[in-house]
């Protein structure tokens, strides 16, 4: 025990103020338990097959895909912040960069993990690389996400090597130093990849001409959802970072980044969200009046079935789109931390709702004239598996926060912040 205390103490950066080992362990225990449960549930699905879930031939996608899409949208903060800092030289966002990388890493690796459980033959995952069908949006997604995950890992390495014990190994320290110099390259690549796969995730549904609820006209090879997803992802990424940071600040009991960072993130998020909502509104009108009518589907076919009423669409566009956009940009509200966070939360839920609708409602709605509207509720295995991923995220973030310099590049800075 004493030994553990010493170890823990030695891993924490010199001068950094962290909660006591005891409290940290107590904090981790429930999450570790949840993670263990999740691994068990996932094991069931892998061993007995997907009959453990409540998905079926109509609901071929379920809760997992929906939450994966959500997670990846939330993780967009990582590439976007990197893009802002290294490409657009927004140096004042540097303090949250490391945190953003960790959040991104968690979201993407978590999503990948769930996908591996979600497919029927995980051992064949690499077929997608070996026999790629370049027409498929899913191929684009697979390629980009796995590459970007690699990038995220490479971006995480320098942060990891800044751990107090690791930096004692000269070769690691020098490597960190050298890699750090090249991070802008990675940031650029990451931005490129994310841009495409965020889009392709939207394209995933936009290309389904067999599902008029999801099918959209587009530009070149990309349906409109391609661009909507990119826009919504980069809009909501910063918001999610704000929420995460705020949460960490609450737990740490002190401010980790300056208010200016929040305001800036909020503003970027808000402006992009506004653009997204506008684009989405136009897209919806075109789709309802031209695209879907052309193939004999009326709005009634989409919004006649409860709970998927038109109220849901309104909710997505106005209360969870327009309003947060204003909350995040208007100086009146943006100056108040509370409003800012509230806006961020609304924005995130709005994009989550969008992913939900596209995944679940698309499949629930009838296509053939004599189809029935179907319901689906996930099985406990599905829920617990995903809860496990959340737990994994919390654990990884907590460890990173405790032992790595996530906020502020220098301990000095960290100290200053913690004092001030």
């Amino acid at each position: 025990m004493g030994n553990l205390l010493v170890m823990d103490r030695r891993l924490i950066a010199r001068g950094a103020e962290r909660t006591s080992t005891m409290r940290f362990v107590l904090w981790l225990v429930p999450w570790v338990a949840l993670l263990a449960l999740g691994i068990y549930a996932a094991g069931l699905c892998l061993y007995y097959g997907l009959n453990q879930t409540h998905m079926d031939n109509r609901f071929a996608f379920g809760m997992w895909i929906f939450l994966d899409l959500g997670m990846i949208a939330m993780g967009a903060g990582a590439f976007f912040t990197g893009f802002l800092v290294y490409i657009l030289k927004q140096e004042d966002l540097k303090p949250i960069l490391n945190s953003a990388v960790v959040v991104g890493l968690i979201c993407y690796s978590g999503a990948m993990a769930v996908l591996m459980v979600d497919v029927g033959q995980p051992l064949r995952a690499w077929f997608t690389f070996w026999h790629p069908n370049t027409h498929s949006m899913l191929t684009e997604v697979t390629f980009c996400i796995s590459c970007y995950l690699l990038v995220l890992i490479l971006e995480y390495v320098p942060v990891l090597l800044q751990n107090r014990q690791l930096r004692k190994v000269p070769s690691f320290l020098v490597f960190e130093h050298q890699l750090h110099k090249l991070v802008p390259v990675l940031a650029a690549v990451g931005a490129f990849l994310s841009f495409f796969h965020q889009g392709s995730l939207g394209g995933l549904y936009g290309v389904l001409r067999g599902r008029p609820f999801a099918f959209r006209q587009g530009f070149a090879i990309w349906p409109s959802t391609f661009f909507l997803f990119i826009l919504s992802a980069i809009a909501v990424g910063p918001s999610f970072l704000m929420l995460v940071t705020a949460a960490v600040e609450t737990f740490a009991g002190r401010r980790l980044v300056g208010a200016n960072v929040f305001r800036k993130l909020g503003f970027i998020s808000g402006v992009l969200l506004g653009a997204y909502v506008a684009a989405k509104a136009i897209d919806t009108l075109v789709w309802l009046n031209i695209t879907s009518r052309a193939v004999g589907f009326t709005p009634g076919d989409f919004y006649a079935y409860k709970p998927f009423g038109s109220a849901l669409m309104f909710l997505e566009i106005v209360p969870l789109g327009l309003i947060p956009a204003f909350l995040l940009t208007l100086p009146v509200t943006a100056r108040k931390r509370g409003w800012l966070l509230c806006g961020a939360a609304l924005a995130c839920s709005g994009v989550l709702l969008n992913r939900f609708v596209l995944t679940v409602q698309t499949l629930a709605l009838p296509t053939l004239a004599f189809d029935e509207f179907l319901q689906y509720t996930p099985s406990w295995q599905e829920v617990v598996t995903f809860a496990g991923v959340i737990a994994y995220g919390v654990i990884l973030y907590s460890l990173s926060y405790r032992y790595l310099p996530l906020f502020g590049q220098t301990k000095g800075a960290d100290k200053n912040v913690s004092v001030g």
Partner: protein
Amino acid sequence: MSARYGFVIDLDRCTGCGACMVACAAENNVPPANPRATPRTGLTPILVRKVSNGMEGAAHREAFIPIACMHCGNETPCVRVCPQQAVEVDKETGIVVQMPQRCLGCRYCMTACPYHARYFNWWDPAWPAGMERSLNPGVAVRMRGVVEKCNMCSARLHSAKEKAAAAGRKEIDPADYIPACAEACPTGAILFGNLADKNDPVASASHSSDAFRLLARIGTEPKVYYKSTEDWVKALAERDSPQPTEAQHG
């Protein structure tokens, strides 16, 4: 010359007996249901669905619509979305072929198919002890976790080709190749043939004024046609119930 195999299914003749479903399963080594399987998790490469005109009393009418893979000829949704080319349209025959040994089980194709004609192997294929001896040697059993669907009994096409090759013929004898469902239908409601061949009965049947295709306006060019003399049945072709006259084009 390349064929365009397809079906013309006469709904007036379909009594919904289900012979096509069982014959298909037996021919293609589709496993019997797992005890926990339901109509939503079953494996029915051809599925006969009951439809009604929604009227009450004596005006109430019912019909049966066999649904199999439509072997879409244009923008084939499943082929376009499959990330690893586990589905492809055979140039020679127009058959949309599913390759289970290539399938990852991502089920993206199932979300893409508007006809719900694709099925996922939710369970390991299992037969009662000894029954595996009754399996069709021409067809490989699919493993758990992959998607399958109607392949127009490719195994039969294959043996027909072999027969033709053995006889030194280039073209197969149409009599040698008929899918199990069409062969099994007791009323001859399921007509199979080469839509590209003007002399083939299906070609003319597909052009009859009673012929229509499901969701034709989506533009996927299904190669399964339906026939009915009843307007309420024709109206099932599209969601917004067009007039029977509109039902053919698209």
